[in-house]
């Protein structure tokens, strides 16, 4: 009987851990709604249906492709430890063992798949924001499907699947690089291939194209922050009280400090408290802490968040200067701060050290080079085959009419 009890005790722990991982999955899921509302909020009303469509179908595409190939590429098993590529065969499925602590003491095979699948789709969503208001729907969907199915899992495997970055000692707790920069690099290539929106940079002037709904943008950011409880908290991969609660504290402190950093920077430099900068600041704090959320103490978390908040404002202004048109600031939030967050593991916290910094740098580089090449090639092929951009007329009238033949707000008068 004593043996039974011991068993039950460890089963209980398994049940608790798995419960937390399922809840974390639900929280990461809701990030997709966060991305959707943030992105429509920061773009024009005439492209709203288009953006919502993309963001509603991306999680669907992400989850399905991940079930067919992505999960098998990303977690090919221990045979591929230290490698750069592995594949465990198409589809998902498990045996009885996969549903017990023998698979992993933190979660079942199914939970594992779903948690990872929700993550995967976020990488494509990041791209969506940067290329919004001018990309062809069909092209974007093909890009996303291939990107989520192949590119994301490959670099993911390098670290989380036990590949060469892992062996090298690279650290990326919940994916400043593996999720955010991965999306960010693909977005950067997309922005370069597409060019800016019509009228954004005319006659050497930067023209503001204001987002059409600040409440939607705010809803988006709060849902993302909420989702990050699962994104970072779930990345502990168990419900371990000490670790998860620390991670939630560092995550929230960094988000808060990011808000304050961006607010102050915007107020001082731009002379106005710009709400979109505040929102980008919160996200920057979150992305910044993501790589080392379990390594920092409160003060370090605040510092990382605060710096991220400053960086993001500068970065938004910088990309506008060099005429890379990113309607929602995705490049700044996910790519630039994603890199900073990854490097921050070598600067702050338990692992800080020049050695680690160097390893972090190499990781950033490896992922950056691979994703840039992969996504450039893909954008290029799509440009030649399907075409990347909608027609000029369609862009002026809005993609909602052009691509979908409908309006997002048919009951309301539009201002110009």
């Amino acid at each position, binding site marked *: 009987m004593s043996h039974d009890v011991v068993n039950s005790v460890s089963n209980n722990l398994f049940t608790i851990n798995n419960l937390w991982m399922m809840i974390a999955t639900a929280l990461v899921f809701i990030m997709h709604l966060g991305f959707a509302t943030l992105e429509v909020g920061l773009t024009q009303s005439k492209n709203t249906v288009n953006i919502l469509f993309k963001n509603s179908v991306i999680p669907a595409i992400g989850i399905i492709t991940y079930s067919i190939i992505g999960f098998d590429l990303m977690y090919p098993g221990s045979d591929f430890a230290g490698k750069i590529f592995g594949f465990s065969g198409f589809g998902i499925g498990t045996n009885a063992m996969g549903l017990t602590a023998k698979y992993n003491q933190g979660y079942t095979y199914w939970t594992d798949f779903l948690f990872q699948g929700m993550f995967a789709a976020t990488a494509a969503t990041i791209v969506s924001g940067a290329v919004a208001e001018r990309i062809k729907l069909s092209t974007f969907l093909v890009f996303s499907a291939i990107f989520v199915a192949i590119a994301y899992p490959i670099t993911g495997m390098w670290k989380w699947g036990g590949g060469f970055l892992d062996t090298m000692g690279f650290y990326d707790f919940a994916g400043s690089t593996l999720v955010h920069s991965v999306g960010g690099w693909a977005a950067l290539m997309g922005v370069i291939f597409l060019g800016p929106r019509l009228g954004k940079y005319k006659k050497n002037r930067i023209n503001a194209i204001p987002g059409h709904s600040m409440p939607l943008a705010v809803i988006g950011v709060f849902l993302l922050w909420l989702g990050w409880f699962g994104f970072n908290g779930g990345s502990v991969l168990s419900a371990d009280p000490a670790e998860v609660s620390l991670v939630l504290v560092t995550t929230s402190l960094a988000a808060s400090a990011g808000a304050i950093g961006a607010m102050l920077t915007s107020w001082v430099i*731009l*002379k106005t408290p710009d709400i979109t900068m505040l929102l980008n600041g919160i996200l920057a704090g979150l992305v910044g802490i993501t790589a080392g959320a379990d390594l920092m103490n409160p003060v370090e978390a605040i510092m990382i968040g605060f710096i991220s908040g400053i960086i993001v404002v500068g970065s938004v202004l910088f990309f506008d200067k060099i005429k890379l048109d990113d309607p929602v600031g995705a490049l700044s939030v996910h790519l630039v701060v994603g890199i900073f967050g990854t490097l921050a593991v070598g600067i702050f916290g338990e692992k800080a050290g020049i050695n680690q910094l160097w390893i972090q740098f190499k990781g950033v580089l490896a992922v950056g080079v691979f994703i840039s090449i992969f996504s450039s090639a893909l954008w290029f092929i799509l440009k030649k085959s399907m075409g990347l951009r909608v027609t000029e007329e369609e862009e002026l009238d809005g993609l909602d009419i052009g691509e979908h033949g409908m309006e997002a707000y048919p009951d309301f008068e539009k201002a110009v």
Partner: protein
Amino acid sequence: MKKIEAIIRPSKLDDLYTELRTSGFSGITVTEVRGYGTQKGHKEKYRGTEHNLDFVHKVKVELVCPDNKIEEAIRIIIEKNKTGKVGDGKIFVVPVETAIRIRTEESGESIV
């Protein structure tokens, strides 16, 4: 019969309308417009870039009235809208040849 078109500040509409009613004017038609003029709109800024410099929210009040009430109408409009600050707006008077009440098919000055 003439039509008065007054471009005024939105915040003045309520008082103007109340006064016109009290003075026996039977109806007006109001449109939201954007005014570009001497008065400049607020500097708006979005993510570091200025825009929308010159445009101001205004409302256009259209009032058709018999020739003999034009003076009074203009007086009321000036009275209720004059603050002396740039942006008080303009009044334009346009000739109207016919006015018809759809409900009764009556026409002429009597219906306005």
